[in-house]
C-alpha cells in the first residue's frame, strides 16, 4: 500500500519568528532556526510538483535591492518569491555608485513609497540592513551585508547538512578558507554553534579575524587538523575582490597549503560531505575533482536555497500587518 504521513505529531501548530525582519542569525533562537528548516522541508515539496507555485503571497510586493553583484542569491530569492506568487521587482545597482549612508536611505525611502511588503537587501556595508530596518515599514531580509552576515546562506547550509546527516548536533564541521572577509562564515558559525555542532575553522593567520575564538569555535592554521574526522567540510571562497593584496604569497601557494584536495578529504569521515557557498574558484580553494566528486553537495545547496528562502519569506510575511490596511 502506498502510505504517507504516518509520522505525524499533534504538536500545537505554532508560531512565527519573533522579529519581523531577518537581519542575521544572531537574532534567531535555536527553536526559530529549526522552525525555518522544518518549514523549508514543506517548501521543498512544492518545488517537486509539476506546478511549482502556491498562492500564499498573492498581492504582496517584494523588492530585491542588490547593491552588489550576485547570481545565485538574487535568482534564488526571485524564484522563491515567484513560487509563493509574490510580485517581484529587481533593483540592481552597480556597486560603484554606492556610498554608505544617505544614498541608501534615499533609495529605500523612494522604494518604500511604493509600499512593498518586503525588501531583500544586499549591500557592501555591514549593518546596511539594520539601518533600513529602522526606517522602513517593509520587512527587511538580509541577503548579505558587507562582512557581517548572510543568514539565508547559513540556513540553507544547515538545511543541506540536516538533509544529509539527519542532525547538526555533535557533527564536526570544518570551515576552511577566507575567514576574514566572509559573512557566510559569521552566519554559519552563529548558526552551527547554536545548534550544537563542533565547529573548526581554518585559514592562513592573515585571514583569521580577531575574536573568532570567542565565538565558540576551534581555530587552527593546520588544514589537516581541521579536516581530521570531519562530518562536513565547508569551503569558503577566496574573495579576491575584497583583498587589497598581501594576505598570502600566491594563489598557487594557497592551494598547496589550504586547498581542498582528494588527499586532504581522505582525512575526514568516509561519508563526509563537501560544501561551498559558491562561486567556486577551481584550483584555488578547492580542486575540481573534489568540487565535482560524489561527496560534493554544492549543487544541492543551490537547490535547497530556494526552499529555505521560501520558508523565510513565508514566516516573515505573517508578521507584517500592513496588508490589512
Amino acid at each position: 500500500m502506498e502510505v504517507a504521513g504516518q509520522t505525524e505529531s499533534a504538536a500545537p501548530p505554532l508560531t512565527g519568528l519573533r522579529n519581523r525582519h531577518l537581519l542575521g542569525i544572531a537574532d534567531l533562537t535555536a527553536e526559530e532556526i529549526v522552525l525555518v528548516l522544518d518549514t523549508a522541508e514543506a517548501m521543498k515539496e512544492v518545488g517537486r510538483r509539476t506546478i511549482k507555485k502556491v498562492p500564499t503571497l498573492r498581492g504582496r510586493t517584494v523588492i530585491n535591492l542588490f547593491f552588489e553583484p550576485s547570481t545565485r542569491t538574487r535568482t534564488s530569492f526571485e524564484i522563491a518569491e515567484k513560487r509563493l506568487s509574490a510580485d517581484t521587482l529587481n533593483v540592481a545597482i552597480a556597486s560603484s555608485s554606492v556610498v554608505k549612508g544617505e544614498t541608501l536611505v534615499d533609495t529605500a525611502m523612494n522604494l518604500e513609497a511604493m509600499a512593498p511588503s518586503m525588501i531583500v537587501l544586499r549591500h557592501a556595508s555591514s549593518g546596511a540592513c539594520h539601518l533600513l530596518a529602522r526606517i522602513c515599514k517593509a520587512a527587511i531580509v538580509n541577503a548579505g551585508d558587507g562582512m557581517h552576515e548572510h543568514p539565508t546562506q547559513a540556513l540553507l547550509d544547515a538545511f543541506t547538512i540536516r538533509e544529509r546527516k539527519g542532525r547538526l548536533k555533535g557533527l564536526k564541521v570544518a570551515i576552511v578558507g577566507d575567514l576574514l572577509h566572509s559573512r557566510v562564515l559569521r552566519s554559519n558559525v552563529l548558526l552551527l554553534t547554536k545548534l550544537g555542532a563542533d565547529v573548526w575553522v581554518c585559514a592562513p593567520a592573515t585571514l583569521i579575524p580577531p575574536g573568532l575564538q570567542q565565538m565558540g569555535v576551534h581555530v587552527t592554521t593546520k588544514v589537516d587538523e581541521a579536516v581530521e574526522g570531519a562530518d562536513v567540510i565547508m569551503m569558503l571562497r577566496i574573495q579576491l575582490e575584497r583583498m587589497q593584496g598581501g594576505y598570502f604569497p600566491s594563489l598557487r601557494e594557497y592551494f598547496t597549503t589550504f586547498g581542498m584536495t582528494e588527499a586532504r578529504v581522505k582525512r575526514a569521515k568516509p561519508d563526509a560531505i563537501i560544501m561551498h557557498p559558491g562561486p567556486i574558484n577551481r584550483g584555488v580553494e578547492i580542486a575540481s575533482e573534489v568540487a565535482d566528486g560524489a561527496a560534493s553537495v554544492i549543487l544541492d545547496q543551490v537547490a535547497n536555497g530556494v526552499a529555505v528562502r521560501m520558508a523565510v519569506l513565508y514566516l516573515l510575511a505573517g508578521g507584517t500587518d500592513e496588508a490589512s490596511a
Partner: protein
Amino acid sequence: MPVVMDAERISRALTRIAHEILEHNRGLSDLALVGVRSRGVPIAHRIAGDLKQITGTDIPVGALDITLYRDDLMGASVGITPLVRKTEIPFSIDGRTIVLVDDVLYTGRTTRAALDALTDFGRPKSIQLVVLVDRGHRELPIKADYVGKNVPTSRQESVQVHLLELDGVDEVLLEGKE
C-alpha cells in the same frame, strides 16, 4: 463536556463510509484517498484499512497540507504563521477519483483550500468529500458526500476531534460556550 462520538461510534461510522464509497463508485480501480492534515490523514488511513478488509484491495493514501492555500493567512492575522507541513501525494491524481478526507466540516474554507491545492497536482476525474463530523454553518457552497455524523452546533461551540494516532484516544467532543 459532552462526548458526541466515542471510539466505537467513530469506528462504525468509518466502516459505514467505506461501504458507501464502494457502493457509490462501483469498484476501487481508480480510487485514491487524500487526507487533509492533520486529522484527516489518520482517518483516511483507517478508511483505506476498512476498504482493504472489505475488498482485499490496497487504496493509495496521500496527505495534503493546505496552509499555503488558506484565505486568512495574509489578512489581519497577528504575526502568527501556521506551521506548514509536507504534502505527500506519492501517486498521480490525473484521471483518478479522489476521496478527500477531513475531520470536521464547518465553514467550508478548508475544503475550498484543499480543492485549490489538489488542482495544482493534476486533474482528477472527480473529487468526493468525506468528513467525520459536519457541524453546519457553511460560508461557501460546499457539501460532503459522506458524513460520519451531523452535529448541530452554535458558532460559539467548538468541535474537538481526538484520534488514537495523534491524541492517544478516539473521541469527538463538543465544547460549550465560553
